[in-house]
């Protein structure tokens, strides 16, 4: 079978059944060399199963996996040019940080001095040299995460696989570590697949995102495209915040109809003055959200939420609200934007 990805990763028609249930069905994905791609979806959507098939822990019922231009479908994880960072890090507690990172090189029968040098370099890179003789139980969660990353990077893999790598870290650390990972990935130009259920995480670090639902990829595109033009209602709901109204959208007004109209709260504007396309509205509730306010509006055609960051109205204010952009779905598929 032809392989379009060149040196990256290609999944062709993958199908996986686990416990009598079809988890993945006819999944296709091409990741270019040096690209960082997220598999994003709720738990149970098959994203981890997909990752485990790429790593070699699961063999697909049908379909092919190409890594760096080679068909690896039937090859065990130890012979694949991929390295994985596990969700719980999976560090070996009976080995020091140094030994954990050195293990893949020892398996490859490298000379002692070569191992020493490469482990030092990679520990330097993740800022862990001072912990090289510590055991995993003696260091913090964030540090354990970096050891796991170092253990993957030291193998100089063609493909780096990250399974929810940030889910065990607290919120502040998560943002820092994801930036670190992105920076390292860019610098090393390493093809990376990251599994996550966190849309912020996916939007902020990926070149492209594959949104998964029930074992299929709903949409595979850049974060911007995904946000601006979600191809299905499912994606629109999953990514970002959405006002969802049933009706027919014409000239900024909603009338009776059967389409699903998706409106991002940041595309709804409230003003005291009427402008073309705006409709009379009253403010029912204002909820502070930190750096912006969520304003609940009641128009005569629909109830909408708007994100407002300046000139915040008060509950009970009367004025006008206009919609600058709407996504119109029929049978779950995007038919037009207005």
């Amino acid at each position: 079978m032809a392989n379009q990805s060149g040196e990256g990763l290609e999944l062709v028609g993958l199908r996986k059944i686990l416990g009598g249930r079809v988890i993945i069905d006819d999944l296709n994905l091409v990741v270019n060399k040096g690209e960082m791609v997220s598999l994003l979806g709720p738990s149970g959507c098959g994203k981890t199963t997909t990752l485990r098939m790429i790593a070699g822990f699961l063999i697909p019922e049908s379909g092919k996996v190409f890594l760096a231009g080679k068909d690896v479908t039937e090859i065990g994880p130890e012979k694949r040019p991929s390295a994985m960072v596990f969700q719980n890090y999976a560090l070996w507690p009976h080995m020091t940080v140094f030994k954990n990172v050195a293990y893949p090189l020892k398996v490859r029968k490298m000379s002692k001095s070569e191992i020493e040098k490469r482990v030092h370099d990679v520990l330097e890179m993740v800022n862990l040299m001072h912990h090289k003789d510590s055991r995993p139980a003696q260091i913090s969660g964030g540090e354990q995460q970096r050891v796991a990353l170092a253990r993957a990077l030291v193998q100089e893999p063609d493909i780096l696989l990250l399974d929810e790598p940030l889910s065990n870290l607290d919120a502040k650390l998560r943002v820092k570590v994801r930036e670190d990972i992105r920076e390292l990935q860019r610098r090393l130009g390493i093809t990376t697949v990251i599994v996550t259920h966190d849309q912020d995480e996916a939007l902020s670090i990926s070149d492209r995102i594959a949104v998964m639902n029930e074992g299929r990829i709903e949409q595979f595109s850049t974060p911007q495209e995904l946000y601006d033009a979600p191809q299905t209602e499912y994606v629109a709901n999953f990514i970002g915040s959405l006002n969802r109204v049933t009706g027919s959208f014409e000239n900024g007004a909603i009338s009776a109809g059967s389409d699903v109209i998706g409106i991002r709260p940041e595309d709804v504007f409230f003003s005291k003055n009427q402008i073309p396309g705006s409709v009379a509205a009253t403010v029912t509730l204002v909820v502070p959200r930190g750096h912006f306010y969520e304003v609940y509006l009641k128009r005569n055609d629909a109830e909408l939420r708007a994100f407002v960051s300046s000139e915040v109205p008060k509950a009970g204010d009367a004025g006008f609200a206009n919609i600058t952009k709407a996504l119109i779905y029929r049978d779950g598929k995007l038919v037009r934007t207005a």
Partner: protein
Amino acid sequence: MAKDVQPLNLYTKSVGVKVLLSLFSGFMLLLIVGPLLWLAIHAFATEWLFPSYKPKGWTLDWFRKVFEVPTLVDAMKTSLIISPIVVLLSAVICLPAAYASARYNYWGRKSFLIIMFASNAFPKIGLFATIATLYYFLNLMGTLVGVIIIQVLGTIIFMTWIPAAAFAAVPKSLEEAARDAGAGKFRVFRTITLKMAMPGILVAMVMSFIYAFDEAQGTFLIGAPTIYTMPTAMYAIVETYPIQVTAVFSILLTIPSVLLIGLARKHIIGGQLAEGFQIK
């Protein structure tokens, strides 16, 4: 109501109760430590007869005497040779079984583990007698091999259950991480699974050793009169030698067990392996 229940107050100011409690604990201590002390004193005493409250004199002669009797020295040698063989053989047979029951869900797995228990639930002497009839047929009566097999039988329960729990406690993701790092299945087992299960395996080996070293019933039935281990030699000693020799022999019989428990304690409780089990 649960709220009304007061915790039992064991702290008392009554002198009478205190004295009674002290007497009672002293009595319990005497029951446990007394015989051991009595044994230890006899091992080093020239003679200690009722109603004298202390031995006539002290001597190391009884130890010399024990080591002068060839049958007793032979029994010690036999014990020290057989027990490690039993432990190793048991490990070779049982560890793969333990690993299999921890990692694979095969047909009959549960029954296998329960049957291990069953063999220990029935009176052993019945089992041994049945095996003896089989041994006559196989010409294994009075042979080292026969005795070793009998002792291995008794250690199987330790060597399957404890290591099986230890293997099961090794998270699968740790093995997967090693596969991902490039290690083959056997290397993963050797460097990750076995290493992490080692404390459990050590405990099982110590318990098996103590069992084998102390096993008398089956060993006597199968081994006597050609093969005597330390515990079976005891039967003869009690009948033919002065009490001091019995005391010395008892002390010798305790030494390996005490040493092993001490060693294993250091390795298992204080060692880095114990720390390794605190997975975050």
